């Protein structure tokens, strides 16, 4: 899908590689001289929710942003190892980063709608792909807003500025914007940490529903959130992946003492 060449046959061989949606193979990341990810390998299955937890600065965001190559914009960023999506190494030379990002959506910590109308926000991803068909755009906008449960709230205000929405609405709009381009993977970096409890609950419900169609990776500082919604959880500490297991197992019966200390709040 994301390779410039061989568009056709990637559909064929992808079915063979379907077991893992995302794979990290011995990944190391540096910012300048600082080793931020110290050799992490991880396999993520499709249509699952995977949570990344760990203390601040342990490299969760850095690791997450590897999957849509958002670290590329950091001048001092350097990496080693492989990140595979459907079996393709996305750091290969012939990867088209723009196509990659259409397949791998991202939701940020702070809701960041564009300073444009609600409609323009959701239609943006399609428009930059060159889609001009008004009817199609309108349908996709409506569908996406319905998916995040925002349609009823904004139906009559599609041309109003997205910045006028509440924080929770903005975040759901950002998710809708991502869904509009029909990615297969959604990365979320603390998507509810800037929101009130009610908005948080709404978004958690939404994420839970989305896993039917999408593979979701979510960074969170909220242990309850991780245990409520995720299938697997990865615990990071100082650039290392300490433990990665079924969420249930990791929270009730962790293998490592560090994990136990962290999830019980006896850290440091």
């Amino acid at each position: 899908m994301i390779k410039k060449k061989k568009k056709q046959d990637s559909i064929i061989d992808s079915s063979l590689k379907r077991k893992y949606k995302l794979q990290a193979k011995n990944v190391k990341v540096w910012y300048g001289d600082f080793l931020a990810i110290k050799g992490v390998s991880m396999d993520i299955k499709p249509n699952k929710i995977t949570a990344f937890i760990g203390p601040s600065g342990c490299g969760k965001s850095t690791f997450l942003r590897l999957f849509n190559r958002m670290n590329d914009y950091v001048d001092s960023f350097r990496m080693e190892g492989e990140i595979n999506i459907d079996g393709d190494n996305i750091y290969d030379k012939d990867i088209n980063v723009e196509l990659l990002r259409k397949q791998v959506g991202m939701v940020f910590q702070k809701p960041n709608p564009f300073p444009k109308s609600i409609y323009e926000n959701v239609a943006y991803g399609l428009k930059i792909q060159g889609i001009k068909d008004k009817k199609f755009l309108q349908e996709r906008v409506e569908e996406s807003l319905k998916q995040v449960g925002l349609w009823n709230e904004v139906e009559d205000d599609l041309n109003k500025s997205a910045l006028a929405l509440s924080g929770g609405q903005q975040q759901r709009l950002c998710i809708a914007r991502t869904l509009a381009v029909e990615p297969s993977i959604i990365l979320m970096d603390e998507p509810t940490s800037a929101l009130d409890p009610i908005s948080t609950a709404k978004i958690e419900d939404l994420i839970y529903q989305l896993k039917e169609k999408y593979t979701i990776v979510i960074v969170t500082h909220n242990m309850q959130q991780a245990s409520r919604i995720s299938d697997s959880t990865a615990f990071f500490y100082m650039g290392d992946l300490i433990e990665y297991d079924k969420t249930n197992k990791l929270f009730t019966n962790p293998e490592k003492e560090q994990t136990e200390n962290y999830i019980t709040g006896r850290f440091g």
Partner: protein
Amino acid sequence: MNNIRKNRIKDQAFKYWGIACTLLGLVLLAIFIGNILIDGIMRIDWDFIVNLPSRKAERSGIYTALMGSIWVLLLTTLIALPVGIAAAIYLEEYNKKNKLSTILEVNISNLAGVPSVIYGLLGLEVFVRIMEMGSSVLAGSFTLALLILPIVIVSTREALKAVPKSVRDASFAMGASKWQTVYHQLLPASFGGILTGVILALSRAVGETAPLIVIGALAYVPFAPSSAMDEFSVLPIQIFNWITRPQHGFVENAAAAIIILLLITFVMNGIAVYFRNKWQKKFK
């Protein structure tokens, strides 16, 4: 006397000193404007605007100089705007930070401080002589465009910088290319700021005299320019010319022309302030 009180007295003292300084500037400006108004306001009428220059003060008008200024302003905008904005986009969004780029940036800031006469000399050599434009509106506009280019670049970069990083992140994460991000997100979001900078730069250009005198703009032109290759005068040169005349009538003319020039710059600055305020609200 304890420290808190000392600090409060200092604080108060500084406040009044600040007020005094601000007032000094304002009072001087008010005296200047008042003087000019007394000298010139009675002289302004429609004839003064549409009359050609003449040897007789009371029959002279600013038509040719005003048209010259408008021509120069438009052409300068056409030249400086695309070049300046493109350069700013390159420096701000595309250029990787390294030694070369730092040197480039420092020098652009330095260029903003070069005396305008120097730009005149550059214009005279490059545009008037080497490129054989003569002392035309075009040569003048290129010269002024060079003069304001650093201001346009610096202020456009400031406006781009003011667009939150989260907007870039969001756009890139949606699969937008760099150019799409610039075109669809950054330029619209920074439009007000860019416009403010451009207008302020142009209002400086409209008051420039020295570089245009150097490239050979005339103090007396019988006709308004009808093409970019025509000779021309501009308001500040006309004013300068009138002020140096001994007859009282011309001094009155100069004052009247100054009022018109001030009006133009005030209006331009007003527009700039309007856009700045409108634009500042955008991200709040």
